[in-house]
């Protein structure tokens, strides 16, 4: 939900509450004023009636021109005077209308009378209508003006914000650029832009350092390893070494080789994670890669007497060609390594999917865990345990989806894009 829409929602709720409270208050206070006015008029009428009743003998009754209805009832005893409200049928309009009545007792010609003066509260009836209409009008006007204001605001005031957002979206760390912005009139946006500038410059520096470290680590570790391996190879040529010394030396050599490969693989992982392999814009056709890889792996496939079925259509994801090769390589080698003797491999390539199925032993671990680094299902010492981690990383970086399913004896790795 847009921020402006959210603000609008709160503004509307608040103004509704205020408006209705205000309307209520307005109604109550106006009604109070009207009532007070009516009472005043009633008391004035009372004074007149009293005076006329006192002079009844001398005055004709028709003088009682009060404009309100007046009722006289003879009673035995006087009571207390009071004001009450009642609704009475108005014959002219044939509906009940509110009246305010003043009831008091007066003695005339030795007889007590209960006098009731009724006053119609016409204004009160109209008051409610006026209040409702006014409130409706204000609400409508406010709604329209808020909507108009917001759309204008989002176009004008929020423009720099959307500009910043667009730049951030398009930001690519590999290009080592620091985002810069023009100064803004709005304080908040100016602060935001400054923060973004600081952040991107810090990130760029950190990224640069990391990249340098990666390359340096590569150099610094590979060179001593090269020395170790070359010295071992020199030693192997020494005819005077005993068999047990040779065997020990061979173990050292194996370990050093392994260390070298491990270093290479970890560096590769880091480079992929640092997104140093940028995808192009066009999809890579995986078919030639798969076919050439299958040729390279022919020996291994033959030795384990695996049968391969392929169903390939010329498609592939948008990805750096080197990564496409690593992806295919690791999927295929994984399918070979974890296969059974005389097993099967089925490779299917479609427009948005590459799936490699292989027969294999049942898994002891949760399939998803196999994507973790150094996770090995078997304790085959030659395996580095990085193959599927590499595949996973490549997929994550390039926005492909990687899934591992087990379907009876079949292990299925699916990459979709």
């Amino acid at each position, binding site marked *: 939900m847009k921020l402006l829409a959210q603000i609008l929602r709160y503004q509307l709720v608040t103004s509704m509450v205020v408006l209705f409270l205000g309307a209520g208050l307005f109604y109550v206070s106006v009604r109070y004023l009207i009532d007070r006015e009516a009472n005043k008029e009633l008391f004035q009428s009372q004074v007149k009636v009293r005076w006329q009743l006192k002079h009844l003998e001398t005055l004709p009754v028709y003088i009682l021109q009060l404009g309100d209805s007046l009722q006289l009832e003879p009673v035995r005893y006087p009571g207390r005077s009071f004001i009450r409200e009642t609704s009475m049928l108005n014959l002219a309009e044939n509906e009940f209308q509110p009246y305010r009545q003043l009831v008091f007792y007066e003695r005339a010609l030795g007889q007590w009378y209960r006098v009731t003066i009724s006053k119609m509260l016409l204004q009160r009836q109209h008051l409610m209508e006026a209040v409702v209409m006014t409130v409706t009008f204000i609400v409508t006007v406010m709604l329209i003006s808020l909507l108009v204001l917001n759309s204008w605001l989002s176009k004008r005031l929020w423009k720099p914000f959307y500009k910043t957002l667009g730049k951030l979206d398009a930001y690519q760390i590999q290009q080592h650029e620091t985002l810069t912005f023009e100064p803004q009139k709005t304080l908040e946006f100016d602060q935001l832009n400054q923060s973004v500038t600081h952040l991107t410059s810090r990130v760029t520096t950190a990224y640069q350092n990391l990249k340098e470290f990666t390359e340096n680590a*590569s150099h610094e570790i590979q060179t001593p390893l090269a020395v170790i391996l070359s010295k071992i190879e020199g030693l192997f040529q020494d005819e005077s070494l005993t068999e047990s010394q040779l065997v020990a030396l061979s173990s050292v050599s194996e370990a050093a080789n392994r260390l070298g490969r491990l270093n290479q693989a970890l*560096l590769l992982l880091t480079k992929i994670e640092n997104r140093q392999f940028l995808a192009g814009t066009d999809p890579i056709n995986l078919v030639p890669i798969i076919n050439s890889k299958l040729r390279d792996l022919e020996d291994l496939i033959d*030795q384990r007497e695996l049968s391969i079925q392929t169903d390939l259509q010329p498609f592939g994801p948008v990805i750096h060609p080197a990564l496409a090769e690593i992806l295919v390589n690791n999927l295929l080698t994984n399918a070979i390594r974890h296969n059974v003797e005389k097993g099967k491999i089925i490779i299917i390539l479609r427009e948005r999917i590459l799936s490699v199925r292989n027969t294999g032993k049942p898994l002891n671990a949760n399939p998803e865990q196999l994507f973790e680094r150094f996770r090995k299902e078997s304790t085959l010492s030659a395996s580095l345990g990085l193959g599927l981690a590499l595949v996973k990383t490549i997929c994550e970086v390039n926005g492909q989806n990687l899934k591992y399913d087990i379907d009876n004896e079949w292990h299925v790795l699916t990459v979709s894009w």
Partner: protein
Amino acid sequence: MKLLLIEDEKALATSIQNYFQRENFICEWAQDYESAIEKINIYKYDCVLVDIMLPDGDGLDAVRELKRKFPETGIIIISAKNSLDDRIEGLNLGSDDYLTKPFHLSELNARVQAVIRRRNFQGNQQIRFGKIIVEPQEHFVSVDTQEIILTRKEYDLLIYLIANKNRVLTKESIAEHLWGDDADLMDNFDFIYTHIKNLRKKLMDKGCPDYLRSIYGVGYKFSEQ
């Protein structure tokens, strides 16, 4: 044959020098960029091995200089950087091969010999070892004028063994030579054994003596004795 090694790591340089001296190569060593340029300008080499990360300069500049002076000299880049860009740039500049550290000296040796063969004889030179004659251009192998049909892997293996004759070759170095990065896949080295066995059998079937000796726990040695 005369080699120049441009490498700043002394221990590695010594190993490489020793290795090639045993092949009766003259292997000179330049420890930095400056002395490398000096040597390149004075002498002519059959093959130059260049580490592209030097303390006082870029090895690629040395490659450019060399190409300008002696375009027919073979060049092999040895680098700790396994970066694709460097590899492509190096090969574009006209180097013949690119080897990433760490490498097996036997692998380096095989590549140096291949480069020299290609450069000096346009690959037409026969390779002879005992009774075996290989014509690299045609991938043709014969023993006593009888042709021997080898698979691609067996052929590569034979060339590798001959290039590193009279030396102990570890199983890992053979595996890496034949399968490259896929060597990781070898859960054991039975694999090499299959190829060795087949190659040996094919050679001996044509009356070739058994040149291949297995060294317990280490690997193999190809020699006439």
